[in-house]
């Protein structure tokens, strides 16, 4: 009697489960798409990206235009916010289920394709993708072992933006060199700072070193190109900025800004922190939050030290377009890629939601379209026209950035001195590069 009832119950559960699985199975059958669906003579390709609402809307509009021009191709859009995207992409690549066209962060793709075979070699699709708007330099970052793994979508270059309203308030001029910043610091009241570089202190040091030596901190194949003495000098130089009250102390930076967006920091919104070093992509949020209180943000010339060999600003692609190495529709995917980077309709639809286009042709189309103005236009010009040093793909890889971020944090908090900081950074990076290359 006992067993009969329990068996019956277990049977019910099993039946329900079976129904659920088959129900979901048929659902998934109808919607399933691994890029090789062929519905109604249409080829379906999958595309993924991350972004915010503006970028989603713009990209969906661009896709629509593409589908109008190519009625035999359907694009399935898979998009989300930034949070968690790296996990999702990593899981997909590990499981071999990644989409055909992917937007990839510059910091990741080297890990995904250490030998150059992680993504489809875009050189093979030269007949479909027009590379004329790209120079050798702009294509280089996407190359691994001479295979073109990704094509740079937009450019990034370290930029300094300043809160003109605060500077005006204290009668300080917008600085064009470091002396200008010293002057501003002297004119500012207690509690006001001309500049901040939260989470990017080491980048600033890097730029200083590049100006001094003419070389990037890390070479493209992971070798450290500055001496320990130079690096120690770099840390000392940053300390001098703190001492001259150009930037807040390490402790203050953590307490005020922590590790979050500067546009969400009270002191920045109130104008107490009157400037920062950042990437162009971040500028729109800074600009908009200051606009709300009628403060003005301007793009400054990146200050150079005396006798600087180069402006030193770090340049890198902010994101690249890559094609899946297992794609079943390379030609159709290449068409989509070409549309997004070359076709005027595509470029206008995307607008500035991905920043400054790396493609010269695309850049011109957007500029002529006239929709860029104000700070965005200044930014565009700045990035295009300032010579800098291309960042090594190793530089912002998580394992390596952890080394110098930890050293910088300990240094700015006063736990270690500049010599130890330099030592720790160099030995830590050397070891990490060795581990990465020993795969």
């Amino acid at each position, binding site marked *: 009697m006992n067993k009969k009832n329990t068996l019956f119950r277990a049977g019910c559960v099993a039946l329900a489960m079976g129904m659920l699985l088959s129900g979901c199975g048929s659902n998934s059958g109808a919607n399933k798409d691994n890029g090789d669906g062929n519905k109604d003579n249409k080829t379906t390709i999958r595309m993924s990206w991350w972004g915010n609402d503006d970028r989603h809307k713009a990209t969906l509009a661009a896709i629509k235009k593409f589908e109008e021009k190519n009625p035999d191709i359907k694009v399935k859009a898979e998009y989300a916010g930034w949070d968690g995207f790296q996990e999702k992409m990593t899981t997909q690549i590990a499981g071999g289920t990644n989409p055909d066209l992917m937007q990839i962060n510059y910091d990741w793709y080297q*890990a995904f394709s250490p030998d150059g075979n992680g993504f489809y070699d875009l050189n093979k699709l030269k007949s479909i993708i027009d590379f004329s708007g790209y120079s050798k330099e702009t294509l280089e970052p996407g190359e691994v072992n001479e295979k073109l793994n990704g094509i740079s979508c937009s450019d990034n270059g370290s930029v300094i933006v300043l809160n003109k309203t605060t500077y005006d308030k204290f009668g300080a001029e917008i600085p064009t060199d470091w002396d200008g910043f010293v002057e501003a610091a002297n004119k500012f009241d207690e509690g006001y700072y001309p500049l901040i570089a939260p989470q990017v202190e080491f980048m600033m040091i890097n730029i200083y070193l590049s100006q001094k030596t003419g070389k990037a901190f890390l070479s493209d194949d992971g070798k450290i190109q500055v001496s320990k003495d130079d690096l120690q000098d770099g840390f000392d130089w940053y300390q001098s900025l703190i001492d001259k009250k150009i930037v807040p102390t*390490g402790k203050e930076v953590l*307490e005020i800004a922590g590790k*979050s967006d500067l546009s969400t920091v009270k002191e920045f919104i109130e104008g107490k922190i009157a400037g920062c070093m950042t990437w162009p992509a971040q500028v729109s949020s800074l600009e908009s939050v200051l606009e709300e209180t009628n403060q003005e943000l301007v793009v400054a010339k990146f200050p150079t030290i005396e006798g600087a060999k180069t402006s030193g600003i770090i340049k890198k692609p902010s994101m690249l377009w890559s094609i899946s190495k297992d794609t079943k529709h390379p030609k159709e995917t290449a068409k989509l890629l070409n549309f997004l980077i070359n076709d005027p309709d595509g470029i206008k639809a995307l607008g500035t939601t991905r920043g400054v286009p790396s493609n010269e042709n695309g850049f011109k189309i957007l500029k002529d379209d006239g929709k860029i103005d104000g700070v965005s236009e200044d930014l565009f010009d700045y990035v295009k026209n300032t010579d800098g040093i291309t960042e090594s793909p190793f530089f912002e890889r998580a*394992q390596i950035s*952890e080394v110098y971020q930890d050293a910088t944090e*300990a240094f700015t908090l006063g736990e270690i001195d500049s010599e130890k900081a330099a030592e720790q950074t160099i030995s830590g990076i050397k070891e990490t590069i060795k581990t990465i290359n020993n*795969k």
Partner: protein
Amino acid sequence: MKKEQKKVKGKRKYTGLIYIAPWLIGFCIFTLYPFISSLVLSFTNYDLISKPKFIGIDNYIKLFTGNKEFTKSLIATLKYVVLTVPAQLVFALFIAFILNFKLKGINLYRTAYYIPSILGGNVAVSILWRFLFSGNGLVNQILETIGLKSVGWLSNPTAAMLCIAILKVWQFGSCMVIFLAALKEIPTELYEAAQVDGAKKWTIFFKITVPLITPTIFFNLVMQLVNGMQEFNAPYLITQGGPLKSTYLASLMIYENSFKFYKMGYASAMSWVLFIIIMLLTTILFKSSNKWVYYADEGE
């Protein structure tokens, strides 16, 4: 009487297995398989892209030699557990007891206390906590108003640990709700009988209520310990393990090694070390439970 009981027990010998059959099947498919996979991976240098290569116990050795980062992380995790688990249990039990009375509007209060724990790892929490604990945040402003010095919550290693501990204790709601359920299971006749005998409130609490809910206290203790050892959201959202890795809890380190550094094999080894530590702590708790937990189904 006894003969009937024996007959009943005899039939029930294998009935139990049938009841847990679904669990057993699920365990083999959904739990055993990934567990064994990750154990195997811990002996490799799997980086998610290339095929895993067997490297023996190298990962485990690396964990405890070299820069001892994992050891520091484990210690930070233990500190976190010691700070949060007792505090949570005490608050939860205390408040649950207070909320167990039939006051008007008690339901509203219960909801109010429970809401923080609903937030969990919600993105709003990170905004909120920074707003409260930044240099000029609300907490420091209050401290200064009452004449104390403001604290560098996010820049001072000890304070940062406190900051994320407070977040966890603030979310004691789920513990409290479980205690509420347990308190409700105590038959009211017991209370009435005790009152008749003239027992005072606190005597009732300590001699009747607490012993009867020891199974639940034990449950909450074990669960909070296990959850605390694997805490991820608080350091991830608020401090990212800083400053100076003072809040670099084990789960955060494991996560970064898997999905940021792509050292999946190494991360798996870390997880299994964590597993063993949690297992040891829990076993100790279970063994001790024989001394202080009273189960009504075991007779007196």
